[in-house]
């Protein structure tokens, strides 16, 4: 990693040019914060495989593409192609982004008790209360990419749900990329705040309209107030050429509840890191994830569950299917600090290897500093059960059908955690197709 071309300085300069151009309203301090992030980035540089967190995740290919942020803000696209991607059920509100920018006319932001807007407009209007919350969980950035996001974030969703508001229907957050974003890096940044006793359901999806390469470098901060309740359904399904990096930061107040169902299906290289921090007792988080790594794909999940206060519980369940030259990396860390007595934390990771060229590197970790706790983790790597296959074949299914059925059965435990029926059906269909076209080798 000695000779990087373009160099760290090139990236930093590009970031600074962008900062100068951005609307800051009266929030000059935000520009300063961004410049600080750019400096932080140049100190940190990009991560490398000598760092424990990046041990199995090579970014050489990503750096070779030298993705830069794009400062052109006028791109055209056909709105009907975007509408076709909408969730097939009524939604309470909708935020649509295409190639990194908020699309007002395609969105639906009129919702009582809920602030739905784009980060760009919040920045332009200089809405201090919201802007102050930026970076409150993520900081300036623990590694180069996160710092770069803070420096060059161009737009993103801002969702604030007022105290006591209870939404029945989901809020849709749709993030699309088209050919126009090809070879650019996109730096979305979302901020989601649920005040006390609010409850909501969020469907967040990353889709590509074309098969082009780009780099999505996302940071999302989610703050749940006391007794707030968020059900978060998240799908990453970008083009097979894409690079996708997601950092989720989660802050939970007393008795807040967060449930995540996530699926990583697309992008040639993807990494999702979820940082969950409990800041008051009685909170609970449940994370369920599914990943598919087909030929040439790398899927990486990093979980960092920090039990800093007593009486919180967390449960994580991640499952992966690997085929072709697919690679999966899983790192699930549970930290229970000295004060966090009566913590309850359980993590499980299961990997199904369908091909002889696939590779899984999994590393669950428990770091326990308190004694009155119940913690466990489990991980498995295996293949389809020969007896189950034999049973299905004896019932007249072809080898291929039998294998597909068993794979779907394996995935269904996670799919069931997606509450939205239309989304669940869609995911099922995508997985079925993927299994048919590339995943199954008999």
């Amino acid at each position: 990693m000695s000779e990087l071309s373009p160099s760290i300085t090139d990236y930093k300069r590009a970031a600074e040019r962008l900062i100068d151009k951005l609307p800051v309203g009266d929030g000059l301090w935000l520009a300063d914060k961004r410049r600080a992030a750019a400096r932080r980035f140049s100190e940190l540089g990009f991560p490398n495989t000598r760092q424990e967190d990046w041990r199995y995740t090579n970014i050489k290919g990503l750096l070779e593409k030298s993705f830069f942020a794009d400062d052109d803000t006028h791109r055209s696209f056909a709105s009907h192609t975007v509408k076709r991607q909408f969730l097939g059920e009524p939604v309470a509100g909708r935020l649509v982004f295409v190639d990194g920018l908020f699309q007002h006319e395609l969105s639906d932001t009129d919702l009582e008790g809920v602030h739905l807007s784009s980060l760009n407009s919040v920045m332009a209007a200089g809405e201090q209360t919201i802007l102050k919350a930026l970076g409150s969980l993520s900081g300036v950035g623990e590694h180069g990419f996160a710092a770069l996001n803070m420096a060059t974030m161009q737009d993103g969703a801002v969702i604030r749900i007022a105290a006591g508001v209870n939404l029945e229907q989901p809020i849709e957050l749709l993030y699309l990329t088209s050919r126009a974003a090809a070879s650019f890096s996109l730096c979305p940044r979302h901020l989601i705040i649920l005040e006390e006793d609010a409850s909501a359901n969020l469907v967040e999806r990353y889709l590509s309209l074309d098969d082009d390469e780009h780099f999505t470098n996302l940071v999302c901060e989610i703050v749940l107030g006391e007794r707030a309740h968020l059900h978060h359904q998240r799908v990453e399904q970008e083009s097979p050429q894409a690079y996708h990096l997601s950092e989720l930061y989660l802050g939970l107040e007393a008795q807040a509840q967060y449930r995540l169902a996530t699926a990583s299906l697309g992008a040639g290289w993807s990494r999702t890191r979820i940082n969950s921090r409990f800041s008051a007792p009685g909170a609970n988080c449940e994370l369920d994830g599914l990943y598919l790594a087909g030929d040439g794909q790398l899927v990486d999940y990093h979980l960092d569950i920090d039990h800093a206060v007593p009486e919180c519980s967390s449960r994580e369940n991640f499952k992966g299917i690997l085929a072709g030259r697919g690679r999966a990396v899983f790192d699930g860390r549970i930290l229970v600090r000295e004060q966090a007595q009566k913590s309850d934390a359980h993590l499980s990771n299961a990997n199904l290897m369908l091909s002889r060229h696939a590779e899984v590197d999994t590393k669950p970790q428990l770091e326990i500093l308190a004694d009155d706790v119940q913690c466990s983790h489990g991980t498995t790597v295996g293949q389809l059960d020969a007896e189950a296959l034999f049973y299905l074949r004896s019932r007249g299914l072809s080898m291929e059908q039998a294998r597909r059925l068993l794979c779907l059965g394996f995935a269904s435990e996670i799919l069931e955690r997606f509450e939205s029926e239309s989304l669940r059906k869609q995911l099922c269909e995508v997985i079925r197709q993927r299994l048919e076209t590339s995943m199954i080798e008999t």
Partner: protein
Amino acid sequence: MGLPDSRMDELIQSDYVQGFVTQIESDTLPPGLNEGVVRTISERKGEPEWMLKRRLAAYRFWRTMKEPNWSSIHHPPIDYQSISYYSSPKKKAGIKSLDEVDPEILATYEKLGIPIHEQKAPAGVAVDAVFDSVSVATTFRDSLAEAGVIFCSMSEAIREHPELIRKYLGTVVSDRDNFFAALNAAVFSDGTFVYIPKGVRCPMELSTYFRINEAKTGQFERTLIVADVGSYVSYLEGCTAPMRDENQLHAAVVELVALEDAEIKYSTVQNWYPGDSEGRGGIYNFVTKRGDCRGDRSHISWTQVETGSAITWKYPSCLLRGKDSVGEFYSVAVTKGYQQADTGTKMYHYGENSRSTIVSKGISAMHGSNAYRGLVSVASGAENARNHTQCDSLLIGDRCAAHTFPYIEVRNPTAMVEHEATTSKVSEDQLFYCRQRGLSEEDAVSMIINGFCKEVFKELPMEFAAEAQKLLNVSLEGAVG
């Protein structure tokens, strides 16, 4: 759980009975490390030229290396120039029999309960006693020789069996393997060499007893066990040291080679001085242990009971290269006071149908910190490799820590790899059950802890299983309550 803190603390102060110093004249090199020291060690041991060359190469390489810092242990930096690298009890030249060994040393071992008088020894255990940097006695050599088994000190092996040493030494843990292994390769003083010839089932248990006595010294022993085709050996090592305020370094290397159909069972009961209840003193135990299942159907089993040392840093590993080879790792690690343990195993699956089992039990009490760090790696050619890992941690008291860091790397779809880990304190339910059956709280906890470790203890040779259980009870006396 019931008892007030003051009573608990009082109970915790169980004595380290092995903590005495033997007053004896010794021949100790002044502290410091340079090429001259390496040459002197080699000369004192009467080594051939090729061995000296190896030591010097290792020393030069070590100087280019940095101390590793990735583990979860913490200690002040070690000054490698303040350690003496060689210390041996003064002796008359050419000791022929046990009677000529310094009676003080014999008394030391007697006091430790180590049988080096053959007539008093329990049948079936041969002992190599290593005192500071040298082996002072090896028992039952004649009866072992009858079976063709070579059981001697490493220095002697270098002189008497150079062909075996050159063939096997450093082939499992290379002289450049890691910081401490390179240091060991440069300055190792003594240790044990075992060779079991083809088809021989070693007629007795072999064991080495390591004792650090001299102050400001480090112990760098080197052990090599070679089990030739179709042979079997069970080997046990034990270790103790005096109580001192300073930290002493113990950086050993153990290499095991199992050829076709051979089986090696390696057991460790490690009870180095753990430091006092304030965390002063104690041994830094930085050890590299690795077994090579070189032949088909070979079998290596590591069992360790780690109750001592201020810091334990070791990962007994298996290279499962042969078809159908088997690797096992059973561990109980206890940390109390300010002890830290970062231990675990690495299982590298290369051979078809290779299998491995890992059972690790960590117990942390008081300010103790215990980490399991392990790797299971399945190479692309390892068809039908199988691993099961079970790591359980038991926490006693709210100031201790338990960590689990398993790494799993799989490159073959026919592999079945499972890992499970749990962390909890002694369950109230279990305790309640035992109490209502009339057991006192102490007995109940002790019973639960022994049950927790049973899976590992049953792997130890019988006499030592009882010993280990006793050690565990003493070690945890009063830490629970």
